[in-house]
């Protein structure tokens, strides 16, 4: 049996994804449980994430997206639920998302038009055409964009959490690393630094089974990412990443623990990347049956909807209203920016330093 066939045969059916932390029961409405409005708001962000990405696919096919397009299909649940567990607003908690955490960004207050402008490299994009996709930030709203060097955001977010600690502010940092990213040195250095300093930092390990085309067994020899964190003296749990409630509960627990000064917490979420690394990648290295199984049996949005409807917390009409609202919002955001210009060439120069201003145009541009 070749390794791919072995992998397909042994790929756990979605229902067997280990959840060492018990899945939260549907909140009954008391204590810290989610209200009906909150449950619907979470649904709104799930739907917004998926619909916005579908819109980006359309724009990509029209060559309006300039660079690559990175989907989070199948990971929207964990992205949304985690950010939702933070205290959000001006000068509250700070989160640093990765490429497949569009849902987190939206929950933290990034606007759909900002995402669209970033992908289309518009002059009016948050980075004025300098950076790609979700690589942008608004520290007042509480998100810090990643750079492409995986692992680097762990030490940087440790520094943000260190500032919270030094100032005695009851704020928490939350940072993501993918299964592949846990192989980098900065991941380990940052994790150890944060653990030693007992920083208010929650680290999320996203086990989505694929680092570009590389499967976990070629990436590390441990079974769970949580094992890596435990080596640094950090409490770590593994949860079902496609169960919105489980992710929300685990994150909330870790965040509040960090806020009380108990130090770093690591949450591993087991999920699945259902699209290629980026839109150009046809995923020929993935067994088709595996993809189909995750799509049909373990879609985070479907599972969330079933839970809500099954518990009679919401009616189908409520969800339909949100679907309609999201469609209108994404249409409006697209209309607002799709025809905007790219940045003027000369705007490439300023802003390397606060002072002095950037160098003049090079001499050969004016002879």
């Amino acid at each position, binding site marked *: 049996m070749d390794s791919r066939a072995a992998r397909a045969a042994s790929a756990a059916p979605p229902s067997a994804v280990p959840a060492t932390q018990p899945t939260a029961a549907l909140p009954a409405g008391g204590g810290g449980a989610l209200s009906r409005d909150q449950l619907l708001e979470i649904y709104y962000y799930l739907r917004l994430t998926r619909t916005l990405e579908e819109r980006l696919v359309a724009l990509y096919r029209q060559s309006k997206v300039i660079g690559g397009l990175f989907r989070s299909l199948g990971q929207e649940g964990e992205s949304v639920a985690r950010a939702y567990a933070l205290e959000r607003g001006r000068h509250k908690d700070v989160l640093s998302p990765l490429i497949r955490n569009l849902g987190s960004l939206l929950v933290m207050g990034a606007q759909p038009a900002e995402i669209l402008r970033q992908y289309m490299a518009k002059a009016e994009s948050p980075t004025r055409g300098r950076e790609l996709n979700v690589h942008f930030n608004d*520290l007042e709203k509480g998100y*810090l964009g990643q750079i492409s060097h995986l692992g680097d955001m762990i*030490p940087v977010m440790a520094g*943000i959490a260190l500032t919270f600690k*030094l100032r005695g502010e009851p704020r928490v940092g939350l940072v993501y690393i993918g299964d592949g990213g846990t192989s980098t040195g900065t991941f380990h250095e*940052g994790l150890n630094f944060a653990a030693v300093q007992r920083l208010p930092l929650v680290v999320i390990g996203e086990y989505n089974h694929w680092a570009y085309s590389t499967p976990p067994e070629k990436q590390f020899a441990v079974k769970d990412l949580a094992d890596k964190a435990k080596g640094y003296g950090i409490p770590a749990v593994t949860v079902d990443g496609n169960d919105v409630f489980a992710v929300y509960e685990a994150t909330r627990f870790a965040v509040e623990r960090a806020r009380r000064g108990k130090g770093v917490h690591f949450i591993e979420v087991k999920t699945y990347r259902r699209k290629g690394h980026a839109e150009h990648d046809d995923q020929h290295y993935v067994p088709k049956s595996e993809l189909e199984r995750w799509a049909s049996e373990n879609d985070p949005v479907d599972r969330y909807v079933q839970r809500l409807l099954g518990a009679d917390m919401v009616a189908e009409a409520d969800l339909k209203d949100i679907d309609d609202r999201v469609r209108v919002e994404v249409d409006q955001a697209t209309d607002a920016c799709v025809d905007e210009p790219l940045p003027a060439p000369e705007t490439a120069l300023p802003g390397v330093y*606060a*002072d002095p201003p950037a160098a003049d145009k090079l001499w050969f541009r004016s002879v």
Partner: protein
Amino acid sequence: MAEVTFLEALRQGLWEEMERDERVFILGEDVGLYGGAFKVTDGFAKRFGESRVIDTPISEAAIVGAAAGAAHMGMRPVAEMQFIDFISCAYDMLTNYVATARYRAGLATPMVVRGPCGGYVRGGPFHSQNPEAAFLHTPGLKIVYPATARDAKGLIKASIRDQDPVLYLEHKWLYRRIKEQLPEGEEVLTPIGEARLAREGKDLSIITYGATVWKALEAAERLEKEDNVSVEVLDLRTLLPMDDAAIIRTVKKTNKVLIVHEDTRTGGIAGEIAARINEQAFEWLDGPIMRVTAHDVPLPYAPTLEDFVLPQTDDIVKAARWLAAY
């Protein structure tokens, strides 16, 4: 006035900024109660507390990365590399994350990375490096490299107050060898980006920085006495951004240029300086732009080997003599 060493001047600068601004804090290996490998932060933890003088794990990438995160949040971190040789372990963090932050994301990252550099001290390949050329190629960073006690103090203070990340290189051969009278109770600040004329002359210019400023000055004395050649010495002090105006001024004055640095030759900063002179003052040259640098080898340990590899005063005298006669 009080006579202070280069190291004491640096220490005073750090201390004064810690006193002046509570956002300033230090992080690095053994910087706390031990006071740093060279005792630059001796007594700091006692005065300012261990939360402002933080002992870290041996993790240069984490030190620089955490400094960046804190800087984004309005702090003013000063990260110490125990020896600047180890900054290569944080190269990614400094060049990819820190230096690009303002441009790509509008993020202010006011922070200083400082540490002892340089040879002539029998430190071997990994405790003697001069890494400036590796970082000169990094838009978004500033690089300062003081040669005098006054500038050691003035530049650390200016670096801490700067809005952008600064790499501050301190030559360990100068730490206790250089002494200078510094005013007490008066603020010493050296503007970043301005070179210093270390010696006036009319026949030939030596452009240099760091420890070789002192070797160039020694050479200039000898050339004056032995050859009646008048040598001007320009101490760059800041390598990025480079003070083009001061470089061009001295070229136009003496029309002959010798560039001296302790770093290796190929891809060293001398090449960049030569290119700028070529572009901006070609017609003013009465001879080739020449370089005195280390040989292109990792720095060896044995005194006989190290002395052979690094540029010495004799080398500068010989090169300047040759160029003066050109």
